């Protein structure tokens, strides 16, 4: 079994008095694509925010490349090669398409991804590079958000519901592009509500339910019944 690149150990998360994650144990192997599924409010985005350092954690809850990153700030985590395509895209409205991509490269990591490589993956962005990011369609904005994360040349990339609010044909385009994106030894975590999409691109899957891991398994062997039980909590 390959070395784990990311490990979570008894991870809790809180918003004030409200606890959103309870003792989550999870790991991602080098080069692996992991899917995380779960219903609305299950804690998927919270988990992404904890990993990236946007939420503060207790010491030794998150290990990345054998380093304890639990207490690092988000920018320090980013510098170590962990990038995220956030839920809802969250582009910078004051920046042009090109500038949104450029800012992803701010971490200064070397690798295959550059402006040219992103334009080659999504040619439409080359045509629209000088436009304000808010003037693009939803699908094009999602391409910018993906390109922005790739520009960091990450070892591990987190996708939080990249299909949210997009037309099925565009979702298909983006998922078709994923293998080309995740190749080259990159690991990925894909958060997705669409269970069959999630299973088709991943090797392993975790299901979250009310802040707890309710299922863990290989994507090609988990059964529909197990998933619906883990997803909805119906016995």
């Amino acid at each position, binding site marked *: 079994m390959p070395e784990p690149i990311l490990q979570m150990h008894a991870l809790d998360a809180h918003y004030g008095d409200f606890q959103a994650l309870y003792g989550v144990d999870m790991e991602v192997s080098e080069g692996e694509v992991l899917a995380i599924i779960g219903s609305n409010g299950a804690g998927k985005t919270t988990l992404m925010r904890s990993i990236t350092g946007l939420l503060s954690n207790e010491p030794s809850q998150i290990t990345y490349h054998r380093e304890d990153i639990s207490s690092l700030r988000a*920018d320090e985590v980013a510098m170590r090669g962990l990038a995220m395509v956030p839920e809802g895209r969250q582009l910078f409205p*004051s920046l042009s398409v090109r500038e949104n991509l*450029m*800012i992803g490269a701010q971490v200064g990591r070397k690798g295959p991804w550059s402006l040219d490589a992103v334009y080659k993956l999504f040619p439409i962005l080359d045509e629209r590079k000088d436009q304000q990011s808010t003037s693009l369609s939803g699908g094009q904005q999602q391409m910018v958000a993906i390109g922005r994360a790739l520009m960091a040349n990450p070892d591990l990339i987190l996708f939080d519901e990249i299909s949210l609010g997009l037309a099925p044909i565009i979702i298909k385009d983006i998922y078709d592009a994923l293998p080309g994106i995740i190749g080259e030894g990159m690991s990925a975590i894909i958060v997705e509500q669409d269970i069959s999409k999630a299973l088709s691109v991943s090797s392993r899957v975790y299901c979250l339910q009310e802040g707890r891991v309710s299922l863990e398994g290989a994507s090609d062997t988990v059964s529909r019944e197990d998933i619906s039980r883990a997803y909805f909590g119906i016995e």
Partner: protein
Amino acid sequence: MDWLNAVVQGTLLGGLYALFAAGLSLIFGVMRLVNIGHGDFIVLAAYLGLTVTTATGLHPLLALIVVVPTMGVIGYVLQRGLLNQTLGDDLLPPLLVTFGLSVILQNGLLEVYSADPQKMEAGALETASFAVGGLNLGVLPVLTFAVAVAVIWGLQWTFYHTALGRAFRAVSDNQDIAQLMGLNRRHIFGVAMALALGVTAIAGILLGIRTSFDPSIGGGRLIFGFEAVIIGGLGNLWGTLAGGVILGVAQTVGAKIDPGWQILSGHLAFLFILAIRPNGLFPRISA
């Protein structure tokens, strides 16, 4: 001709007000911080200039070489050490803390330099003038206006054509996501404050050459700066220059009608514009 003269002199005065305002506009744009102590920092810069010129015999304009970086360092340290801790969802803490800074600065200056009005000696620059089409223009006001245009242009260029400016805009748009891009907002805010106080240093020195100053005048400079920013519209630096000019012209034209009306007519122009355009003339940020 007298009226034209008043308008031209007011325009040039507006350059000084734009310099008062540029730093305020910059930090509000980047971090939504309103620095109540801004005017006192202008006065601090004037006193630092005074100390440098009396200690070294340098011309006040050359003292900028020392005062600009000094104010920049003060800005960075202040932001990292104090002001960053006050930023959050609540607007009140930064207001209270910078108000406190204003009081501390005024009293500190009073202690060190006394309440006596001071002035920087700039030799021939103070009185030199030249004639253009029947108008007599002072070299210092023209220089001040040119510096204001250059500073605004420089800030604008930094904002829209450099990696630093991109970082300023990204952090201003969305602090969390900017942090995900590897930008440490605390550092970016520190750099923004350094830049703002660097500009303030230029404003302070030009003020100190133009008129006499004492530790109590910061509040008035803050108001002029505020009015220029609001008239021009938040987040637009060229708008801030326009705001400074409108304020300056209103003041000189008012003074032409009756010398006692100078300050009042500036405030009236401000209120009038606020009444017809609550977001200022050229807003970029919705308040």
